[in-house]
């Protein structure tokens, strides 16, 4: 009967962890929308939202309430099932990534060692890629189900962009995998944490740059926000959406941003590693809390950079976007991969 014996405690522990992480991500995403508006405002010499609550802190809730209260419109010629599926898929795909991110080491609670990672699967990073590709379906289905040619065209723009930049992203990642020799995010972070070991960004600056640019394109952030292009094309693949379904699409962008920041932090910036500190000298619970704080700090910095870029550079033209993706980033990523491979071979031979 060992086959059927389920470790109930493990199940409960994981469920609690999932709940905490999902709600924390949503909460952070909520305030990321607020931060976006504040950062935009401050970079443009204005105060930003400051009326709802102290310092405008209740603004995201006011926005959410507004979106929920809006009338729910489903165009009569739209395919209803897919129309509703689209935003759900976008949101699910955005949230699913958090399953493999190691948020910190482990805590010891009630004589149990609880890993602060939902699932340490040995193909972690491949899983991330699979899920990120799923996000394209959210865009495509949304644009297609609306039965509006402009939405469809925007969805095509979005899909082609996502697919082109996924390539360069994948290739730049191979170089990191060559160094770490593992696909598990946890192992990669542990390697970077080991004393005397530098963060991966020190070995892979070019790889990080490519990955960062591609991550921006994957999240549809300016300068790659062509699928949305709210001011000059049309509102993009979610043009026909209203109410909270639109909210889901907009919100999933922010969740995506958090997740890609977390992944970049884990892959290139040591995850929950605190620089110049050997975590093993601390009690495990304190180390875990500090680790979470360190990872969150890195995520916040990345998000700020995302926003900072958004409010600095204008959008690429479509041909520029494709040129950059196919003619610059992919060759650069290939070059980076070859150099890394050659270097590793040389090290092993010597």
């Amino acid at each position: 009967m060992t086959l059927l014996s389920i470790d109930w405690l493990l199940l409960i522990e994981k469920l609690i962890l999932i709940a905490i992480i999902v709600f924390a991500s949503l909460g952070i995403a909520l305030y990321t929308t607020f931060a976006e508006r504040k950062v935009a405002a401050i970079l443009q010499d204005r105060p930003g939202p400051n009326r709802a609550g102290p310092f405008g802190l209740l603004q995201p809730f006011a926005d959410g309430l507004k979106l929920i209260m809006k009338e729910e419109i489903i165009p009569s010629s739209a395919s209803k099932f897919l129309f509703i599926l689209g935003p759900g898929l976008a949101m699910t795909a955005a949230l699913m990534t958090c399953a493999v991110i190691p948020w910190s080491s482990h805590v010891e609670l009630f004589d149990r060692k609880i890993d602060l990672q939902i699932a340490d699967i040995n193909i972690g990073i491949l899983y991330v890629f699979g899920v990120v590709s799923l996000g394209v379906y959210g865009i495509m289905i949304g644009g297609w189900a609306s039965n509006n040619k402009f939405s469809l065209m925007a969805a095509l723009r979005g899909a082609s962009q996502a697919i082109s930049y996924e390539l360069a992203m994948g290739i730049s990642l191979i170089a990191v995998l060559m160094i770490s020799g593992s696909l598990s995010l946890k192992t990669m972070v542990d390697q970077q944490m080991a004393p005397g070991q530098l963060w991966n960004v020190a070995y892979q600056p070019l790889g990080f740059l490519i990955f960062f640019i591609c991550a921006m394109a994957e999240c549809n952030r300016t300068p790659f926000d062509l699928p949305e292009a709210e001011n000059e094309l049309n509102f993009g693949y979610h043009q026909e959406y209203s109410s909270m379904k639109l909210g889901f699409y907009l919100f999933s962008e922010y969740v995506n941003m958090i997740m890609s920041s977390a992944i970049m932090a884990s892959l290139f910036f040591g995850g929950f590693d605190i620089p110049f500190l050997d975590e093993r000298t601390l009690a495990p619970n304190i180390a875990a809390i500090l680790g979470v704080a360190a990872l969150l700090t890195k995520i916040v910095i990345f998000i700020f950079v995302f926003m900072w870029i958004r409010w600095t550079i204008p959008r690429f033209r479509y041909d520029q976007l494709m040129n950059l993706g196919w003619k610059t980033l992919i060759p650069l990523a290939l070059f980076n991969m070859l150099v890394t491979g050659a270097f590793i071979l040389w090290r092993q031979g010597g």
Partner: protein
Amino acid sequence: MQALTNRAKEVSRKPMTLLEKLYLPAIAKGMLITFSHIFKKQPTVSYPEQKRPFSPVFRGLHVLNRDEEGRERCTACGLCAVACPAEAITMEAAERLPGEENLYREEKYAAKYEINMLRCIFCGLCEEACPKDAIYLSETFAPANFTRKGFIYGKDALLIPDAKTDPEGYAKARGIGEPTTAD
């Protein structure tokens, strides 16, 4: 071709160098500029709490003046309505009855006096036209409203409170004490 002025500048059609094609230096430069704006002073005026000073000749919301004894000055002559380029003023005249001498200064007065603030362009010509010094543009402005009707100001809104019995209301309607650029 002969240039007409010496201000013309030839557009550079040089192909981009590799460094420019990478976009990165230009992006870094732009990002430094935006970053420097974090530390710049914000010109925003948080309106209801903080007010920008009016100019001393500011032409704001109209008031209908009273004379020294608190009587309405307007005699419903209609010159302001004639002068008004926006045709914002309408009025109905009435005759002063015996016993109302303490209310109206002249024998004829405006029983109804309305200004449509959505039509008004605040040019101040009504003020210039008035022979009785009855209409006056104060240093306040029309607050927002939900309906168009709310912008048609009647006598209840225009007539200034008596300076003797209600000095506070008088000062408020005139916009006395609002910050001006004069001080």
